[in-house]
């Protein structure tokens, strides 16, 4: 293969690696950003004050983790800076089947979360009757076979351990990317849940808006919380971060393999170049170039592959990645089974830091693989090189 064709092949492969690395990382960053934004909007707000016994990973704590809030926090709730939630385990019987659910009580008038709690009042009283109004997510509706206006029996244990059951009517179904507010969750008015469970004035946790979360974080929760635990946003986002980091690890392996293939091609080309241009190298030395300088020239020549690859990658990568960002990457339905916020589409996020980091990575790795074969020149005998013989 001629030098020109070989160069362009190397450059093309390296440009593919360059674009793929940016794409993979952009996709994960986009997912991360989207998941965090959606989770904040639908589930966690900017911070959470929870009952000391509440453990979101242990459903058995739900029966004990409820209590009255400190007075100062009540004022924040009234002012709309915080939204309390009460949880209890329950069983639902849609169409005669049994589903274990978490009954979540929230103020229908709250605006802190995107949950359309206002839909709880959407059905007129004559339609609702005595049934408890409830809203559910689309996933819950699909799995339970429920629609707006459908009724089902819900059974729970109150604070004294006594079982009770009531009719619940679905007054609204919402669509969300956050499965943890959807799957097996039934949202009803907070006061209603407090009344039917005998937990008047009690909550499981309180979600905070940005301002209140910052204030609480600065004071380490002492001012408002009393014994309640404050969980900041970073901690609330830990699960998402962990999944994304795991995904990133896998993606980096693939990207690294692709990059290695491209760099191997450059390495081979450099080896061949040094071998074929011995006489030229000898001439450079005879003309007065130091060996170090000749090594530098060959290293720079090899590294130009990287510059060309970055330019070529930008040429076709920018329109392609821009189009993908505009249209989004559709996600299959099963992805929401992971329990994390994944939208129907992921919109990749390409930050300048990501692009620059990739440029630097490609450049430096190319520099190294270009330098390694060129080192041989420093050991070359110019007299032999002039004859075309490599020592």
């Amino acid at each position, binding site marked *: 293969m001629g030098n020109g064709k070989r160069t362009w092949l190397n450059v093309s492969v390296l440009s593919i690696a360059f674009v793929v690395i940016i794409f993979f990382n952009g996709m994960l960053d986009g997912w991360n950003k989207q998941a965090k934004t959606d989770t904040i909007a639908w589930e966690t707000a900017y911070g959470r004050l929870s009952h000391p016994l509440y453990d979101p990973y242990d459903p058995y704590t739900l029966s004990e983790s409820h209590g009255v809030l400190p007075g100062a926090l009540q004022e924040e709730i009234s002012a709309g800076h915080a939204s309390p939630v009460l949880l209890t385990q329950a069983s639902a019987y849609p169409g005669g089947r049994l589903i274990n659910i978490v009954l979540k009580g929230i103020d229908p008038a709250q605006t802190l979360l995107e949950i359309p709690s206002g839909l709880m009042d959407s059905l007129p009283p004559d339609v609702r009757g005595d049934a408890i109004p409830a809203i559910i997510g689309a996933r819950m509706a699909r799995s339970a076979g429920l629609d707006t206006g459908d009724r089902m029996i819900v059974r729970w244990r109150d604070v004294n351990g006594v079982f009770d059951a009531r009719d619940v009517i679905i007054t609204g179904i919402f669509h969300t990317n956050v499965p943890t507010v959807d799957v097996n969750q039934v949202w009803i008015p907070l006061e209603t849940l407090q009344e039917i469970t005998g937990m008047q004035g009690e909550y499981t946790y309180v979600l905070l808006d940005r301002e209140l979360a910052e204030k609480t974080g600065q004071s380490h929760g002492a001012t408002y919380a009393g014994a309640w635990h404050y969980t900041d946003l970073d901690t609330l986002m830990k699960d998402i971060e962990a999944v994304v980091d795991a995904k990133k690890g896998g993606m980096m392996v693939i990207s690294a393999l692709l990059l290695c293939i491209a760099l191997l091609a450059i390495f081979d080309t450099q080896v061949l170049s040094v071998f074929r241009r011995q006489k030229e190298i000898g*001439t450079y030395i005879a*003309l*007065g170039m130091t060996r*170090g300088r000749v090594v530098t020239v060959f290293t720079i020549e090899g590294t130009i592959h990287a510059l060309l690859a970055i330019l070529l990658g930008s040429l076709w990568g920018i329109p392609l990645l821009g189009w993908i960002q505009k249209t989004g990457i559709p996600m299959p339905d099963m992805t929401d089974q992971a329990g994390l916020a994944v939208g129907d589409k992921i919109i990749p996020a390409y930050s300048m830091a990501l692009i620059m980091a990739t440029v630097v990575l490609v450049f430096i790795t190319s520099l190294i693989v270009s330098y390694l074969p060129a080192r041989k020149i420093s050991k070359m005998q110019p007299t032999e090189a002039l004859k075309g013989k490599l020592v």
Partner: protein
Amino acid sequence: MKNNAIVTLEGVTKRFPAGKGLFTALRDISLTFGKGEFSGIVGPSGSGKTTLLNIIGSLDTPTEGTATVLEKRISDLSQKQAALLRNEGIGFIFQTYNLLPVYSVYENVEFALLLQKINTTERKKRVMEALEWVGLADRVHARPSTLSGGECQRVAIARAMVKKPALVLADEPSANLDSDNSHHIVKTMKTLNRELGTTFLFSTHDEKVMQYLDRIIYLKDGAVDREEYPKDS
């Protein structure tokens, strides 16, 4: 001539590893070359001509003895110092021209000056001057692949002379040229020798070159066999 000596060789011996032993390419060579000489080292293939030229050109070092070129002892030079000596003081002309194929005629000649960090205007002046000497000022943009053998060698002469070195080493410069070109090349170098006072040292076994030399050193089996001064006879 010693006070004008450009090159002084004292007991220069060069041995190379050859199989399990050593091959002696040069044996106890003691010679001096003065400013403005137009001399040649003549001998059959394998007599040590190129080896001697490589040592004088600081591309190699003697195993024994001393080689002093432009008042610098070759054995004592670091790589950088040797490169500097070649860059500023010595020009090379090779049998196979050794032009850089991706550069034009102008760029090939300019290359030697680029290493000296001379400004663009001065470089251009010197390159065109050198190309005028060899009669190729009208071929500045041509690539080596489009030139004849004689033209290539003239470019090589221009490249060697552009930095006005004190010493030019020409290793079998006419070996790949026909008779007419050979004469033309050597005459050109003779003219430069006369006009610029540059010392020319040839390695050759070509009679067409030898007839122009002022001094001929005959090598046989790595040692000086005899010296002749053709113009004196």
